[in-house]
């Protein structure tokens, strides 16, 4: 059992309840024990620091100080929410970078009888812990009900892979972690080009038209790519894409129905848990039709070849012969080819 300190964040208690429930079902199979920080407070999201800097950092640092005090055998602090993860990691980073900030923050903490030495805890995101510490092999081993046939669009949002102060992610723009995890669950992973684009963040609150446009782009592309559902790591992204999808449709006169679930919900399902146990049903855009196929035999895709399809196949082969080669990419089988 690997042991970590855990910072849940406010949304886990309300809007992202499904994240919390499903998360609890996957920890056991993955051999992870999370120890919640006692009496943690809100991280300030993206709002507090826009009002005043030092109180915002003191607010975050109270959590870091509590975590450091509670550190027993582990100094790794795991966050599941993207904004919380970023705020905690960034605060620790800047406290290390700026002595003045560290001194002022500590002076403020002192008013509450606390202190924090930058770098005392290591802040990591749950997904990265699963990939790095647990490993995809262990994930695969825990899968009892592969998600075969389910087309999923992996969607990380912004704040996990960016700005990535500790360089933990494979790329800022197109990280591979979530794709690999979902593939390990047996799902068919769509190469979703908007996987780290913005969901609108607080725009749904302060400038809804922008927020809706950003949401529309995401669900339109996922729909175009034929995804059954989107999968996210972020409570804010889930909330925007799910809860505001109706408003978005109304705003644009569109009729998208793109469910969005947390990766832990799909993990729970793949690990054999029932839909209800992993919070399925809490989403406003119902994911159950798409999931109805889970556990059922996947319809065969190999249909009889008709003269039309045969002609198309020959045509395609001809086009391939004319085409210029593509450069090999990392993770591409051709990469090992002649150099």
């Amino acid at each position, binding site marked *: 059992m690997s042991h970590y300190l855990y910072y849940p964040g*406010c949304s886990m*208690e*309300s*809007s992202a*309840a499904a994240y919390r429930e499903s998360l609890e079902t996957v920890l056991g199979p993955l051999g992870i024990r999370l120890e919640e920080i006692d*009496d943690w*407070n*809100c991280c*300030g*999201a*993206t*709002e*507090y*620091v*826009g*009002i*005043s*800097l*030092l*109180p915002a*950092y*003191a*607010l975050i640092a*109270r959590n870091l100080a509590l975590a450091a005090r509670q550190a027993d055998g582990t100094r790794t602090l795991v966050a599941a929410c993207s904004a919380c993860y970023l705020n905690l990691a960034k605060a620790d*980073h*800047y406290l290390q*970078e*700026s002595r003045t900030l560290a001194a*002022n923050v500590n*002076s*403020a903490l*002192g*008013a*509450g009888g*606390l202190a924090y030495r930058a770098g005392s805890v290591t802040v990591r995101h749950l997904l990265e812990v699963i990939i790095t510490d647990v490993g995809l092999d262990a994930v695969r081993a825990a899968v009892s009900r592969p998600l075969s046939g389910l087309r999923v669009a992996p969607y990380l949002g*912004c*704040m996990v892979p*960016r*700005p*990535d102060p500790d360089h933990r992610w494979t790329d*800022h*723009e197109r990280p591979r972690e979530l794709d690999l995890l979902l593939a390990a669950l047996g799902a068919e992973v769509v190469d979703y080009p908007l996987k780290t684009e*913005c969901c*609108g*963040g607080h*725009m749904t*609150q*302060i*400038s*809804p038209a*922008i927020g809706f446009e*950003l949401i529309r782009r995401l669900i339109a592309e996922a729909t175009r790519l034929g995804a059954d559902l989107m999968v996210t790591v972020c409570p804010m992204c889930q909330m925007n894409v799910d*809860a*505001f999808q*109706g*408003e978005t449709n*109304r705003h644009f006169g569109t009729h998208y129905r793109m469910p969005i679930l947390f990766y832990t919900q799909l993990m729970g399902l793949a690990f054999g848990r029932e839909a209800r146990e992993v919070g399925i*049903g*809490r989403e*406003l855009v119902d994911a159950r039709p798409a999931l109805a196929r889970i556990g059922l035999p996947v319809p065969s895709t190999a249909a009889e070849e008709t003269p039309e399809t045969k002609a198309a196949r020959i045509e395609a082969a001809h086009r391939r012969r004319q085409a210029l080669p593509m450069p090999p990419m990392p993770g591409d089988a051709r990469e090992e080819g002649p150099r």
Partner: protein
Amino acid sequence: MIVQEVVPGRGRTGNARFLEEVSAATAGVSRLEMCIQCGCCGGSCPSAAEMDHTPRRLFALIRAGMRDEVLASNTPWMCVSCYHCVVRCPQGVHVVDVMYTLKSMAAHQRAYRDATAPDFSRTFVRNVEAYGRSFELGLTALHYLKHFRLRLPGMAPMGIGMMTRGRLGLRPRRIEGSDQLAAILRRAKGLEDGS
């Protein structure tokens, strides 16, 4: 749009200082002075279309010392903190953190033109200061009531849906150490105002 003239004599010294002031108020190292005006930030920004200045132009205005124009700009308030500009910036400018700085300066002086975004942030902050946790229902309801009253009926199904699915707490949660937190924040504010 009115571009403020720099008053000769007065402008000169204020000019260069404004960039320094913004830089100094930013967490970490802003690298604002390194901007080469390539526009990679403005090209990356998902809400650039709604901004009165692209981030790049805002930085040029800061450099020119056009303080009032900068603090009245809606650009920082339109920032969604997606950090695309930050990781792409060829000069390593901490664009998002600079935006936070400009927001807090504008909020402090009430220099913004549109109060929607600052009010949202303030409501959020008040919640957190009172309870130690954020309170989504209260936040959204209050905010919509104030700024988007006409949208409220349209949002009702969503609110009800969230509630029936157990995704909205009806009353806020208060942390045990709320007094401790208040003391910390009080001193932090004192330090910030003092500096």
